[in-house]
């Protein structure tokens, strides 16, 4: 047992750090520190810088443009990205459809999509959730009816993140409603410019417009855009879940936020805005968070180490997801507490301009983070998974 990273890992960390120091544009770093939303162009710009270095899609198979990194290297990369305030890569492209294409795509599909997906020449969104199918995803109803060498799509998706920016959607659609509900689902790639698609934005309580409804009205999709076999879509989608365990707890991000909290604590107690008693109280809260974060970090590292030794971590992904999101949420609570009455006012235009103090986006950030325990399999669903793993019921 050894908590220290290997010489190779340390060298790798240095390499990542050097690259980020020289390649991450200052203006992006500044926006990230202020928790401002990036525009589509900014995300694209950064991902192309990473892709030029070969690091936009490290978890993909090497022959598809990935890196043969060890689990600990992946962990280091993610941590350094977060600590340097680097934006994350576009998750639907990099973590979702890329690996699916690499594993289940035809040669034609790979040739058509992989390079442009990595380079963010095309922007993907994910069409899974429907109004009646949230946690019970398999009950989705959007229908795809075969019509020659096309599918005719009718129905509705909801909570489609970034659909307004998307060129393509990967979607689960129902091609058969006769048998078990999981068995009639297919996995389809849909060009968002196709006739009959309407995107309607959903405003969320944090003031953002990331979520959308997407309506399909007799949308024609070539059968060549089917991933794998018809009716096997559920299997492919499930492949994504628990696929990426090394980053699920978002330790790096939380560490970086903890640093911010520490510096706010210094600032507020030094300036007398918190009296001594409040300062002690706050320091205790921070220490509590630190202990939990350290425990989660080590748990994450244990999973990384077990992966490196080829072991299977069972309920690990769910544990990391639950505790990771709880800590992320806890930290936004603390920032908001620190903001006090100054945090009541919204910044004038919070998503593009960072002229206000740190207090003004505190509430929005708190509201935004409520979703992390809902999306990607709610924490209740994660507990069901843990219970199933351990009780088999």
């Amino acid at each position, binding site marked *: 047992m050894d908590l220290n990273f290997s010489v190779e890992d340390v060298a790798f960390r240095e390499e990542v750090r050097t690259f980020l120091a020289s390649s991450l544009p200052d203006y992006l770093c500044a926006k990230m520190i202020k928790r401002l939303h990036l525009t589509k162009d900014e995300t694209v710009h950064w991902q192309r810088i990473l892709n030029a270095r070969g690091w936009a899609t490290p978890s993909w198979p090497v022959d598809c443009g990935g890196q043969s990194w060890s689990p600990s290297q992946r962990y280091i990369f993610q941590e350094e990205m977060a600590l340097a305030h680097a934006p994350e890569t576009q998750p639907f492209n990099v973590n979702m459809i890329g690996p699916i294409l690499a594993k289940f795509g035809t040669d034609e599909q790979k040739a058509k999509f992989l390079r442009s997906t990595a380079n963010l020449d095309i922007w993907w969104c994910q069409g899974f959730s429907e109004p009646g*199918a949230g946690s019970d995803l398999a*009950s989705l109803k959007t229908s795809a009816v075969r019509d020659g060498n096309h599918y005719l799509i009718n129905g509705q998706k909801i909570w489609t993140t970034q659909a307004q920016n998307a060129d393509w959607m990967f979607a689960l659609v129902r091609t058969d409603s006769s048998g078990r509900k999981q068995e009639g689902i297919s996995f389809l790639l849909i060009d968002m410019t196709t006739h009959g698609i309407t995107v309607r934005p*959903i405003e*969320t309580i944090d003031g953002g417009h990331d*979520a959308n409804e997407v309506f399909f009205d007799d949308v024609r999709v070539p059968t060549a855009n089917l991933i794998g076999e018809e009716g096997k879509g559920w299997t492919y989608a499930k492949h994504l879940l628990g696929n990426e365990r090394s980053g699920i707890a978002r330790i790096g991000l939380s560490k970086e936020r903890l640093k911010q909290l520490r510096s706010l604590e210094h600032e507020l107690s030094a300036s007398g805005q*918190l009296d001594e008693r409040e300062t002690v109280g706050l320091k205790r809260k921070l220490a509590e968070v630190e202990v939990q974060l350290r425990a989660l970090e080590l748990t994450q590292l244990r999973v990384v180490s077990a992966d490196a030794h080829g072991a299977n971590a069972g309920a690990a992904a769910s544990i990391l997801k639950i505790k990771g999101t709880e800590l992320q949420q806890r930290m936004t609570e603390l920032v908001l507490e620190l903001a006090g009455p100054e945090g009541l006012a919204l910044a*004038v235009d919070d998503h593009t301009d960072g002229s206000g103090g740190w207090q003004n986006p505190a509430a929005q950030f708190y*509201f935004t983070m409520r*979703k992390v325990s809902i999306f990607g399999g709610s924490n*209740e669903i994660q507990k069901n998974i843990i219970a199933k793993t351990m009780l088999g019921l």
Partner: protein
Amino acid sequence: MDFELSEEQRLLKDSVDRLIAKEYRFERRLDFLRRSEGWSRQTWQGFAEMGLLALPFAEEHGGFGSGGVETMLVMEAFGRGLVVEPYLSTVILAGGTIRHSGASGRMAETVERIIAGEHLMALAHNEKGGPRHSLEPQTRAKRSGACWTLTGSKIAVLHGATADELVVSATTDTGSALFLVPAEAEGISVSPQKGYDGVPLAEVTLEGVSVQTEFVLCEPGMGEKVLAHVIAEANAALCAEAVGIMGDVFDTTCEYLLTRTQFGVPIGSFQALQHQAADMLIELELSRSMAILAALSIDSEPPVRERNVSAAKAQIGRSGRLIGQRAIQLHGAIGITEEYKVGHSFKRLTAIDAMFGNADWHIDAIVEAGGLYTA
């Protein structure tokens, strides 16, 4: 020992509940929020006609001389509707400073105009940089002849931008005082802000604002005492509002649990969710009890009043967070959309905890006071 409402109180409750249910449906509120002022003057007139603006003022000034329970009933209904009109700022806060300063001749007229719905006010007491929720303002007031000159800046002034007149706290050589300052006074600048809960706010800067001595609302040295009383009343009112919100959130969540189906059954049939909802009800009932305690304590002597109000605000801060977060979680994605009421309720509960001391701040206040049960 009796928790029943009197006949008059029941009538008041019924009519304000009806008013909110009828005039303050969620869609209308969304419409109010989109307007430039962010609220509805028509609704305000409705409050005036119903007499709600007159409640706490003395009968001799045209008010009803009502107490904490009446305010509680109104605020609870306002909570259910997520009312954004300037009741807290005009009637409870600024109006409270007038009431507790002992309203004299000039003031009687102001009160009459408040009651008529013709005069909006705001309390400017929050400041940046100093200790949280301090009652000793950094804003300075200097006397020269028949005038005071005010210099300083205020933040988080609730409904500050639409107020016709501000009550400003400032420190003089002989202690803190409260001053009435017309919104259009020379040297004052008011910059409007949007609160995340939908309630408009303002930052107010005073650069050598001149105030005649007759506009001294509360003499030097008395400002802190009056402010403490008014803030206790505001906290009691916010507790009642929070209970209204929590009750509404709880009802909405139960309804959602019964109507939303997943895996072929209503999600309310899942025991883990049932138990979460049960926890919400427990917090709601405890909060309701404490809002009543706060309402019944605001006319007690300061130590008892402060302790009880702090206890209520602490309970409500904790419960509000739990109920708000659980409601969002139980709703799932729909809970965080701007089109759905629960998210707005969650935001307002968050703001209520942040105002006039959050739960931890009030726990510390109880510690300072030597404990809650200390007789």
